[in-house]
């Protein structure tokens, strides 16, 4: 069997058991659910600080009606950032490289924002399809363009996350393979490649966090338009 570089993204199974189930279930043991009597330790303090900061960041510019989404978007952020970051460890599987998972979150949540907008304030929601100050002759074209861009949003959301993480993991695998193969032949080049790999891993850590943030931020923006 010839291994291709994309084989790392195949949904892994062991004896017929899909391991993506484990990858989706186990990370949450890292997050405690404090009872009423618990005292905070460092981890819980940090997590609470993160949640506090994140909710303020996303919901300060949001009008009051959108604040109902606080728990949902916070859960989504935790979900994505944990899966992304844990996927950078060796021998782990990143569920967010699967287009199915990302589209499963992007499409329903985007659709929810659109439906909320259409039900509560249909004129205002439809008004987004025509930017202010458009020359009269361009109105039909622009409405078509804006409608297309509206419907591309969930696709873009899902594919952006998938592509970023897939590309990152692919690059890491490529450069690691190169460093490994070069080591017996040209050790100095292999060391340079390893330095490149190290820098790439740092970049991927940043990308993991940023992509999760961007996903949730864009959803909050779509919500802000419609709420």
């Amino acid at each position, binding site marked *: 069997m010839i291994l291709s570089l994309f084989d790392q993204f*195949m949904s892994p199974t062991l004896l017929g058991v899909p391991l993506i189930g484990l990858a989706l279930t186990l990370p949450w043991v890292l997050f405690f659910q404090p009872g009423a009597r618990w005292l905070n330790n460092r981890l819980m303090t940090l997590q609470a600080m993160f949640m506090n900061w994140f909710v303020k960041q996303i919901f300060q510019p949001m009008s009051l009606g959108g604040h109902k989404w606080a*728990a949902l978007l916070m859960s989504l952020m935790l979900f994505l950032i944990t899966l992304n970051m844990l996927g950078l460890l060796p021998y782990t599987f990143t569920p967010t490289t*699967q287009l199915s998972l990302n589209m499963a979150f992007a499409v329903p949540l985007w659709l929810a924002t659109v439906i909320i907008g259409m039900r509560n304030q249909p004129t205002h929601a439809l008004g987004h399809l025509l930017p202010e100050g458009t020359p009269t002759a361009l109105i039909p074209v622009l409405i078509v363009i804006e409608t297309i861009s509206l419907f591309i949003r969930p696709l873009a959301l899902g594919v952006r996350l998938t592509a970023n993480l897939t590309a990152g993991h692919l690059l890491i695998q490529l450069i690691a393979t190169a460093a490994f193969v070069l080591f017996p032949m040209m050790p100095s080049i292999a060391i340079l490649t390893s330095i490149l790999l190290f820098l790439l891993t740092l970049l991927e850590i940043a990308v993991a966090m940023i992509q999760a943030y961007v996903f949730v931020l864009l959803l909050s923006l779509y919500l802000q338009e419609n709420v």
Partner: protein
Amino acid sequence: MPQLNPAPWFAIMVFSWLVFLAVLPPKVLAHYFPNDPTPQSVKKSKSETWTWPWL
């Protein structure tokens, strides 16, 4: 590209939403920020309590 293989798509969708709805919100909502009463000696009262909206 193996991600485009349609076989596990539905299972992944269902399972990930299951985990997302059942496991995460309790952990998130358990972090609440209760008010601790302002001592009498302080001139300005502390900020108001905050907890997850609509709950």
